[in-house]
């Protein structure tokens, strides 16, 4: 049936009524109804199925190299490599990391691009866990900032650890080498340091990584050649002079070093020097520089260190701001003030002295004659001529050559009398061995010891030991050249700078021999300065240099002049730089 049926409603109930007289009223008639068949259209209900499709989940993953991760999975055998590093013994000193300290994580450097490589470092355990679980032996628990330094060096193939002197750069480098060696990441390490520091490094390795074999490169050429080619030693220790001498041997070596560590890396600040070239030619995979003074004179010093670390990373014509941005991920610098709040303070005393009348007479004569002589040189004058005059005048400020009078000594003697009486020890720095010898004679009642270039290298350790252990020796006379780096003299509370060095960084190095970890009390630094002399003018130059350093390593404003120009050197005597001479002087 095609027509749509019409529908209407009707009441189908049948009504009936019953009367009380039994009469039957007629029923209401039932309506006639018909059944009509019809087709209903049926629409089935829609069903929606929802499910998580397991196959659609993407995963990313990787497996760590066996030598790194699984060295203890199957046995106690060392990680793959040629060097067998014995495990630390069960009698190790347990490290007591302070509860609540943030764990020290290894963060990948910015120049690691590949995700897998970045995760490799991120997924390493905190250093505290590594040290504790591997039961590594340490003479004492490292400071948190030192662990941070280790975490900084560990993943970097090019790095400068530029902590202020006395914060333990050596220990941080050694600990990182130790971790890398245990992980099988380094097998051949070369440490290059100044000659006087070789024994210091050897001692520090024995203390902080006693299980690592260290070989000192020394002896005649034949022996050195044999030592260079030794493969069963993990660390080779050489001084800069040996590296220079053996540059051809190093060049001919077939294998590369996994890591080269340059201590006191400011030694290569002159890019064109033979030392710098010899160091740069060493085949290596990782390069680290340790220095408390990455910039001694100008930002070019830092660029030269980068020529060794990562050539092409910086350019010499960059301004300090850009240089800082380009180098910040490679460089870690902490100051004692920042990280060692518990370290006692340095108390500076600027002793501004007047020359004795005899000294002043000699000084005036020398300066007047010297300036006249320089003026007479005219166009022939060089910066060397000016330096010669400066040195001569500075020596007069120390001791009058005619009468041997010295206002500095008079003041020093008074100060020493007082502090020696109270049982304290003092260090006296000078630029000249001659001045130190003069002081030695005058201070004989204090049994002074000497530490300078004229003292044989093999005797120097004895000098330091005597000064530390023998109460009779309360004064150490020391030259900036020999003793401003690497020495631990924290048992001395007084430092005297008898004369001033050209560079504030070197003075800081000197002061930090005493002001370092282990110092029991404040360190008093007395800086002698004779008024109205070239020393006063040099002091002003030093202050300018300090500003240069701050412009790279702090947020201070950048000074316009980033280096000490010849003009400034000549300016000490109101002289003009001859035409055509424009190079940086110092």
């Amino acid at each position, binding site marked *: 049936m095609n027509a749509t049926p019409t529908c209407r409603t009707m009441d189908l109930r049948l009504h009936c009524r019953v009367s009380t007289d039994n009469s039957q009223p007629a029923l209401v008639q039932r309506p006639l109804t018909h059944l009509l068949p019809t087709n209903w259209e049926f629409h089935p209900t829609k069903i929606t199925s929802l499910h998580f499709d397991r196959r659609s989940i993407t995963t990313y993953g990787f497996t*760590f190299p066996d030598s790194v991760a699984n060295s203890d999975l199957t046995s106690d055998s060392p990680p793959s490599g040629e060097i067998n590093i014995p495990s630390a013994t069960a009698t190790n000193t347990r490290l007591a990391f302070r509860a609540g300290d943030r764990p020290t994580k290894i963060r990948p450097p910015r120049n690691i691009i590949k995700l897998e490589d970045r995760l490799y470092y991120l997924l390493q355990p905190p250093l505290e866990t590594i040290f504790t679980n591997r039961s590594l032996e340490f003479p004492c628990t490292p400071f948190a900032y030192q662990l941070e330094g280790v975490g900084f060096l560990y993943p970097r193939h090019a790095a400068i650890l530029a902590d202020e002197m006395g914060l333990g750069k050596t220990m941080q480098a050694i600990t990182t080498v130790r971790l890398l060696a245990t992980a099988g990441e380094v097998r051949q390490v070369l440490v290059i340091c100044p000659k006087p520091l070789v024994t210091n490094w050897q001692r520090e390795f024995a203390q902080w990584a006693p299980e690592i074999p260290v070989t000192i490169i020394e002896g005649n050429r034949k022996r050195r050649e044999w030592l260079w080619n030794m493969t069963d030693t993990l660390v080779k220790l050489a001084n800069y002079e040996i590296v220079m001498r053996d540059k051809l041997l190093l060049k001919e070596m077939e294998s590369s070093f996994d890591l080269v560590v340059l201590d006191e890396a400011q030694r290569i600040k002159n890019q064109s020097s033979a030392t710098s070239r010899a160091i740069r030619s060493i085949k290596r995979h990782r390069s680290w520089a340790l220095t408390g003074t990455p910039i001694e004179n100008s930002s070019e010093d830092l660029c030269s260190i980068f020529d060794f670390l990562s050539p092409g990373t910086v350019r010499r014509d960059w301004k300090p701001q850009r240089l800082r941005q380009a180098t910040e991920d490679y460089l870690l610098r902490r100051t004692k003030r920042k990280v060692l709040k518990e370290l006692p303070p340095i108390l500076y005393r600027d002793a501004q002295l007047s020359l004795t009348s005899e000294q002043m007479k000699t000084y005036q004569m020398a300066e007047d004659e010297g300036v006249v002589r320089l003026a007479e040189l005219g166009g022939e004058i060089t910066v060397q001529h000016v330096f010669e005059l400066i040195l001569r005048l500075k020596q007069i400020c120390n001791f009058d050559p005619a009468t041997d009078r010295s206002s500095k000594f008079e003041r020093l003697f008074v100060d020493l009398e007082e502090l020696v009486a109270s049982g304290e020890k003092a260090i006296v720095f000078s630029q000249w061995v001659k001045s130190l010898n003069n002081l030695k004679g005058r201070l004989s009642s204090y049994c002074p010891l000497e530490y300078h270039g004229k003292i044989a290298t093999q005797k120097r350790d004895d000098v330091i030991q005597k000064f530390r252990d023998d109460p009779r020796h309360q004064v150490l006379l020391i030259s900036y050249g020999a003793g401003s780096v690497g020495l631990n003299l924290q048992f001395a509370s007084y430092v005297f700078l008898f004369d001033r060095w050209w560079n504030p960084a070197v003075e800081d190095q000197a002061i930090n021999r005493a002001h370092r970890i282990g110092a029991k009390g404040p360190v008093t630094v007395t800086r002698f300065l004779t008024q109205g002399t070239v020393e006063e003018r040099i002091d002003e130059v030093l202050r300018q240099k300090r500003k240069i350093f701050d412009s790279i390593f702090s947020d201070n404003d950048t000074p316009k002049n980033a280096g000490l120009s010849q003009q400034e050197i000549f300016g000490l005597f109101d002289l003009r730089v001859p035409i055509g001479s424009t190079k940086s002087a110092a």
Partner: protein
Amino acid sequence: MSASNRKSKNAIGFLTILESSEHGISGGYLLLNSTGRPIEFHCTAPVHPSRTQEILYGATLKPYLFGEILGQTLLSQTQTEPLFVCTNVVEVATARPFVSYPIVVLLSENNVKSAPSLRIDEPTPGQPVPAPLGMVSVQLMNQPAAVLADHPSDRQLMNDRCKDLHESFDFHEPFERIRDAVEEAQNE
């Protein structure tokens, strides 16, 4: 689960779920040796359950998504069979039927609170955190933990397998590593 190619006598798995409003829900799995050194790492791309799925799965969404989907997927990737897998997310325990080793949940007030469907009682401050519904308490190197009650042998297995671990082994720290690594991967 795929057969493990490498067997380790002392590898421990750490599996966690990371929820981020920006990226969605991801799983991360880190396999460590007994000194805490990493052996393997796997993570999932983020997933986003739809509103409909949230309604339909209701309280069972998290156990299903975290354990059966993300957990099982990650555990199937590993090449090294661990002694056990540790998680800080209660719902991940539902991946247990798919693997042959125990999955142990580190209990804390936070993770029990965040899994209301599996909780028996409100944790009382200062008191040991009760094991969630369907789980039994175990001690993981003095840490309160729980394993699924459906796998009664897990309790003993856990005790046996923790014997050789260093007493200072930190079971919480690896989850930080997973978080850092997943965030790094997501920022790629």
